[in-house]
């Protein structure tokens, strides 16, 4: 038995118990503040009126859907190359969270699309590739859950995740390669300094809050992941009993 490897998981499990709780409460209150800022303080848009405010959910969620994927792939890579156990768990536990952000980006995008584009859905490259990202997340989760041997499962899914990185630039640059509906007037507005700061600041704030939320959920999920993998091990029994 390699003690350092076990200790690794044990360290994380025991040290982060309170951290995740603290982060959970923190994000909750920060989120309330952000919603207030975005909905009531920020000025309304001269073109879209009030409907643009969904941006404060849509854009951070969309950004995180990409960011979480990159973190997941990074953790997967480390777990494959250096066999760091904690990274295995982090990598796979990112997947449901990422899928969740992707779903939020899709739903808020659709809700936003109705007033701005007059339809919930168009088949343009940005929208389609974001939908595909959701499928990629689901594929990764499905592949993972198909294996009965979870150590094997992590190795295989990490490979898939890393290869899947190619989709990230495609989603990001899709608007440039396929000039269609997405990101029309709302983005050009960022170039106008008058509206810029007052709208951008709450957006950045929400982005930070979403990130905190992600970290809080991730830590909780990783703890559960460690528990389900190590529940039969000695240190876990000792820890839970004593």
């Amino acid at each position: 038995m390699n003690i350092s490897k076990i200790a690794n998981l044990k360290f994380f499990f025991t040290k982060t118990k309170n951290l995740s709780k603290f982060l959970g409460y923190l994000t909750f209150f920060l989120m309330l503040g952000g919603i207030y800022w975005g909905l009531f303080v920020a000025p309304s848009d001269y073109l879209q009126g009030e409907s643009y405010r969904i941006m404060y959910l849509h854009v951070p969620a969309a950004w995180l859907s990409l960011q979480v994927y990159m973190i997941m792939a990074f953790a997967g890579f480390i777990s494959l190359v250096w066999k760091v156990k904690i990274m295995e768990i982090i990598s796979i536990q990112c997947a449901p969270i990422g899928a969740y952000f992707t779903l939020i980006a899709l739903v808020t995008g659709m809700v936003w699309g109705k007033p701005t584009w007059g339809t919930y859905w168009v088949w343009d490259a940005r929208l389609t590739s974001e939908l595909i990202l959701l499928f990629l997340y689901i594929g990764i989760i499905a592949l993972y859950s198909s294996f009965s041997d979870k150590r094997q499962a992590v190795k295989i899914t990490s490979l898939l995740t890393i290869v899947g990185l190619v989709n990230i630039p495609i989603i990001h640059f899709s608007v440039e390669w396929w000039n269609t509906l997405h990101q029309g007037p709302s983005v050009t507005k960022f170039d106008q300094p008058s509206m810029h700061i007052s709208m951008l600041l709450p957006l950045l704030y929400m982005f930070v809050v979403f990130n905190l939320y992600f970290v809080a959920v991730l830590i909780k999920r990783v703890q559960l992941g460690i528990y389900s993998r190590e529940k039969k091990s000695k240190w876990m029994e000792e820890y839970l009993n004593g």
Partner: protein
Amino acid sequence: MYMENALENFEISISSATCLKSNNTIFSDINYTLKSGELLLVMGPNGCGKTTFIKSICGIQKLEEGAIKLNNVDISHGDSQHLGNFLYIGHKNSLNDSLTVFENLEYLCALDRSIQNNIKSEITRNLSFFGIENYKNYLVSKLSEGNKKKTSLTRLLLTNKKVWLLDEPLSYLDENGANKVLKLLNNHLIGGGIIIASSHIDFSVDIGNSKVFYMDNSL
């Protein structure tokens, strides 16, 4: 470090080999050293880990800890140069059902760099050793279980590899076939090779220079 004919000092050492599968320890801390001309017969009850042990020597199965050394060079991280010394024949025959006996052997030999001479004539010649020359152009799917085994064991006659890893080489064989295998093993040892084999029948008495390793850590 492909050892052409320098058989004299050839040595395999297995040190503190430990293997895990889905968090179960299959075996732990196995230490053995084998020199040219020696056979290690792995015995033990079903499920004790014989197959896993043999697979771990040629790198099909990764070890959790420990090392496999070939003349003091650790090969447990699998580089194909050193794999050139191993021939593994396991429970499964590596035979493609939709190819003939001859074609199967031809392709298996093409993977084996230790074979230099004309494969085709060699195969035809050696099929008669186990008496399966009449099946040469049979599809493998039409062979009986024992004849499949004989086909895959014919590789032993063709290869020049130094270390043979054989997992229950006698299974499904008739008496005659089994005796021929034992003869082959003896010849290989005399030629300075090394053999690691598993079996439920203790054939070490029929073999010159052999050790028996009795595994017993079944669940």
